[in-house]
């Protein structure tokens, strides 16, 4: 199909969201309209992936050899599908969750615009376009963080803003270098750097890669720039779930993939000091995230920390600088999205139904809301990486990649160790919650008299779907893996 259609998934939500506040609709109508809009967008996006236009579509010419252009390649399609499938579900969930909040219209306006912008990141044809949408993503999603409008939320949103803009500022440097030292800014698997042009600037180039790794990594919450993520979990759950488990942070990881495998090229970095530097960064953030998660008693913040560590799984996989690594990265990108959004939504459902935020308040709650906790436990087991759950597959891939690289650079064995350490930590911080909920100590069931029930279908549906997905992919992930392999080989 013609490449013009690529514009729709990006523009529709942005425009639609922007219009929302203008036409003052009653909530019911608005929700219906939004859901339709989102579904339509997703449909178009999936269609675009299904009948993929080879050519890109140039929105307009910026300057020199820079244009804003959209194009779907393998990696982009994967990310697009991920978002296109997850967004409608979480919108549905959001309706129920936000029912009693204020300023819902503006919330949903930005929520939808974020959809479009994320699509833009997924479909960006070149570094400049991605940079543009990357900045925009910050700007549109910052409102969502500050939406509760408490002092805390506003402070959190500011932190988020500074971190992201700062990151972008450093990413910008790499943009320049790629413009000058690359053949093109388009994403080409294997990198676009031109060795003649670089000449004797290799060391500078590597340093720049490190800078921009951190720059884009800020959104992926790599150490030491992870600070904003736990803070941002003051936001409403649909936001924390979607943005801080899928859209924003995954865009960070996605950007890193683009930067590493499609701009600088793994061969350029493999074996240099930077290679090990980034590997260590990833490991550090994994250790940090999972350890802090154990320490944290606020449920959502605990999940946020877990997100930090899990994102760095993806990053760690990338830093293997090998096709297998990219494969592992992609698979964890997808699977983690599903299971983390699942666990976040369970947390949100618990918060919404029982107003309980802290882990030690959850004793025996599972008896009251078995459905939610079943979902949570399943997602949790998947996070730990128990076989037959999706998480295991992606972790297996990461470890396999690390083992392969380890042949050449034994440092990579460390990566596997770190992986297992954090798996153990994950077990600790997830299962303590689950066990508290299912098997409370005698006399600790505080909830015998409280009226707490499972939420209504709008919340249940997404939760159930996520749980099922986790199981299904855990048991038969092969078809998906074949697609990913194709992506990695550039044959998709």
């Amino acid at each position, binding site marked *: 199909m013609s490449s013009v259609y690529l514009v729709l998934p990006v523009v529709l939500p942005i425009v639609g969201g922007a219009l929302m506040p203008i036409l003052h609709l009653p909530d019911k109508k608005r929700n219906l309209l939004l859901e339709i809009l989102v579904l339509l967008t997703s449909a178009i996006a999936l269609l675009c992936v299904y009948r993929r236009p080879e050519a890109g579509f140039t929105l307009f010419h910026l300057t020199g050899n820079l244009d804003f252009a959209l194009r779907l390649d393998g990696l982009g399609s994967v990310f697009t599908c991920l978002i296109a499938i997850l967004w409608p579900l979480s919108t549905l969930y959001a309706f129920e969750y936000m029912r009693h909040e204020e300023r819902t219209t503006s919330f949903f306006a930005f929520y939808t615009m974020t959809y479009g912008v994320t699509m833009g990141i997924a479909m960006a044809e070149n570094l400049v376009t991605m940079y543009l949408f990357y900045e925009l993503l910050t700007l549109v999603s910052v409102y969502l963080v500050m939406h509760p409008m408490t002092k805390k939320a506003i402070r959190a949103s500011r932190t988020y803003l500074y971190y992201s803009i700062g990151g972008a500022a450093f990413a910008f440097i790499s943009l320049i270098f790629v413009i000058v030292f690359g053949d093109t800014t388009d994403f080409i698997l294997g990198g676009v750097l031109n060795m003649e042009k670089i000449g004797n600037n290799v060391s500078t180039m590597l340093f720049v890669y490190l800078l921009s790794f951190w720059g884009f990594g800020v959104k992926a919450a790599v150490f030491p720039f992870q600070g904003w993520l736990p803070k941002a979990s003051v936001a409403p759950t649909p936001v924390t779930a979607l943005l801080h488990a899928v859209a924003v942070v995954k865009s960070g990881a996605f950007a890193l993939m683009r930067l590493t495998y499609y701009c600088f090229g793994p061969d350029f970095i493999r074996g240099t000091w930077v290679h090990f530097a980034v590997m260590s960064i990833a490991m550090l953030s994994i250790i940090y995230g999972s350890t802090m998660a154990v320490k944290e008693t606020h449920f959502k913040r605990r999940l946020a920390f877990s997100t930090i560590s899990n994102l760095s799984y993806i990053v760690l996989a990338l830093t293997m600088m090998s096709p297998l690594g990219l494969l592992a990265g992609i698979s964890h990108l997808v699977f983690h999205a599903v299971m983390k959004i699942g666990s976040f939504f369970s947390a949100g459902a618990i918060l919404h139904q029982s107003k309980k935020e802290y882990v030690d308040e959850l004793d025996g709650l599972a008896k009251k809301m078995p459905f939610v906790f079943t979902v949570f436990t399943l997602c949790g087991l998947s996070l*730990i990486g*128990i*076989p037959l759950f999706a998480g295991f597959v992606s972790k297996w891939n990461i470890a396999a990649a690390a083992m392969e690289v380890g042949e050449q650079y034994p440092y990579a064995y460390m990566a596997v160790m770190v992986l*297992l350490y954090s798996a153990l930590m994950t077990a600790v911080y997830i299962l303590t919650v689950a*066990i508290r909920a299912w*098997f*409370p*100590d005698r006399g600790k069931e505080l909830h015998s008299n409280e009226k707490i029930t499972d939420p209504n279908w709008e919340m249940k549906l997404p939760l159930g779907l996520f749980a099922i997905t986790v199981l299904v992919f855990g048991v038969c992930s092969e078809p998906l893996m074949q697609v990913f392999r194709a992506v990695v080989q550039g044959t998709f």
Partner: protein
Amino acid sequence: MTAMYLFLAAMLLPMLSGLFLLFFQGKLKNRTLKCILIFLVMALTAGLTVRLMCFEDYQLVLWHLTDKLDILVRMDNMTRLFAGMTVTAWTLGGVFAFEYMKHEEKEDRYFGFYLIVMGVLIGLDHAGNLITLYLFFELMTLSSLPLVLHTLTHDAVMAGLKYLFYSVAGAFLALFGIFYLYAHGAGLPFCEGGYLMVLDAYSGSGKMTLLVLMLMIVGFGTKAGMFPLHGWLPTAHPVAPAPASAVLSGIITKSGVLAIIRVVFYTVGADVLRGSWVQYTWMTLALITVFMGSMMAYKEQVLKKRLAYSTVSQVSYILFGLSVLNQDGMVGALSHFVFHSVVKDCLFLVAGVIIYKTGKKTVKELTGIGKEMPITMWCFTLVSITLVGIPPTSGFISKWYLAEGSLQTGIGGYAWFGPVVLLLSAMLTAGYLLPISIQSFFPGEGYHYQELRKKEPNLLMLIPMLLFTAAAVVFGMFPGRFLGFLQMTAADVIR
């Protein structure tokens, strides 16, 4: 093909019925009926398993998890041995529980998970390659957790968590090894004597492999309560309901042993280890555990805890037997596996009976209890003797083989040091078991015979105990065919 369906049936039947039981907790009011149903399920499963054991050796790929990972089941002597032991012990423990669980709450939950674990264990025993093994290993940990913390006292929950995290940690240590071995072509099904040596993917990475093996032994050893990761066992076993703790230390600890066997003798091959630092470390750890376990047991006053410590030491007998890496050691290990399971089940059941009937927990209180429940205590005494290893009981045989094995190794120190430690700990065993029965039968002065009244439990409880005891004794008397089977097994595992 039939084998496949039979296996699936044997595995899924208890699992599904367990899940069923969980979903409809307390719906089934008629207790007798429920118990009968549960018994039927267990019996049927046992039957199916036995039927499977009668097949020729086979391998079946159940499912392709990914392109490299297959879920694969396999029937060989090791499977027969472990599966057979499992179903027997499990069924008897279940029968005992029918009576015992009367004084616990939420028995439906207990039985539900009990059945699920049974299914998982059958899967574990049939596991045909590393990843399948790991899969069922994890599932076993998770599903047996509720058995541990069933009573939901604070201690129980904490103990449960401890059990969980130790096991998971161990499993992850092992997982590292699995990752590594897979990267070197260990994706194939098990085969006697191991196959990794012959693969060319393996060539050249000797050192790393040894390290990895050490990790895996320690990791899987966690379940078997091997030093240094034994800490969970004395905490977790006693807090569980008696039948649960019986199967926990009777069967589940052995799954660690099975895993190690599968890795060392069926994947890597004993030759890789023989004479390496790993073997020495392994032996040392085993011996340390043996001695330490019995020491602790000797010092311990709470009966169930004492038994738990004894488990720690006894299971390490088995590990020691494996670590010597020769046929006699293997035979000793396997036989001790069987005997110890039988004995330890029985002992825990006895402890359970005592708690159930009198609520007495510590050893001190047991003075003269033999008068009140003679049959029970006779079982206790007999199996204790077995465990100590006084001829002609079964324990003697296994320990004999173990000693033989360790002497054959011809590794200077260990050759004689091993048997010495075994002997020592045998004495300690005598020291911590026999006095109980002595004082229970001969309370001596100050025991008020007038208050004496019979507290013998009913048949549901007696029969399992008696059967176990019988088994322990009979094996000791006529070990011939059984040992032959073991020797055959050992022979094609270690060439």
